[in-house]
């Protein structure tokens, strides 16, 4: 069933076709590991892709928050003027 380009409701982005949105969702899907590893089916519903994307972003943000707290504790245990910090800086920049 072919759908017309114009939607029934006025929208500022009505010129974007469904095929282009489908293409964008396909590219988004390749960024999600859970769906990426799903080899059984080559096709996934758009709704599921979006749901997994939201979950994945939330997980990444939580992981970054946890790592931030851990980095805070580690930075306090190391004096920035100590030779250890200098070694760390040289390792990172080297």
């Amino acid at each position, binding site marked *: 069933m072919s759908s017309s380009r114009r939607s029934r409701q006025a929208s*500022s982005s009505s010129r974007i076709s469904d095929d282009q949105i489908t293409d*964008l969702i396909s590219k988004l899907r390749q960024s999600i590991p859970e769906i990426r590893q799903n080899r059984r089916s*080559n096709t996934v519903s*758009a709704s599921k892709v979006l749901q997994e*994307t939201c979950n994945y*972003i939330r997980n*990444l943000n939580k992981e*970054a928050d946890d790592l931030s707290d851990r980095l*805070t504790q580690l930075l306090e245990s190391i004096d920035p003027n100590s030779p*250890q910090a200098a070694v760390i800086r040289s390792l990172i920049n080297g």
Partner: protein
Amino acid sequence: MASLISDIEPPTSTTSDLVRRKKRSSASSAASSRSSASSVSGEIHARWRSEKQQRIYSAKLFQALQQVRLNSSASTSSSPTAQKRGKAVREAADRALAVSARGRTLWSRAILANRIKLKFRKQRRPRATMAIPAMTTVVSSSSNRSRKRRVSVLRLNKKSIPDVNRKVRVLGRLVPGCGKQSVPVILEEATDYIQALEMQVRAMNSLVQLLSSYGSAPPPI
């Protein structure tokens, strides 16, 4: 029958579609921020995974963290709470990430422009999304019509139109600066933001391991 997305797509039409869509979006938004071609866009996405970019970001991240520590120690004699310092570290990491993106994307410009991170954190409240049966879908669709919708209509599947729209809106709130953007912009920004976040997590993991190994044991020399 559920609407499906397949991987089988000719690359030439994809490229032409990308070029066409970019021109339209730039014309409609009256901003020249999206003047880069599709090949450059592909390179931007690939940049997040290169080893050189990872190393550059790690160096910036470490400098930003030291700056945060100096600021926190200089500002108050009494040490602030660990939770506030954790937030400061995260904000520094986000800004370093946005600087690495060089303002090419909406989310990076939003992070650099937004100095008050409370708004950003409030937007990240998770909301439970329940599966909607067919009957409720019709009701939801009729109720959605009364509201003024800024998101374009996805016609991948008639029954899932309200569901897809709602999830794109939730996704837009998770990506900085995309709360009120159109569907294609949200999808494009989310793709780039995910890869940037992945690099951030990798860099912070490396730093944690490095600092742990040096903090626990004395130097061998």
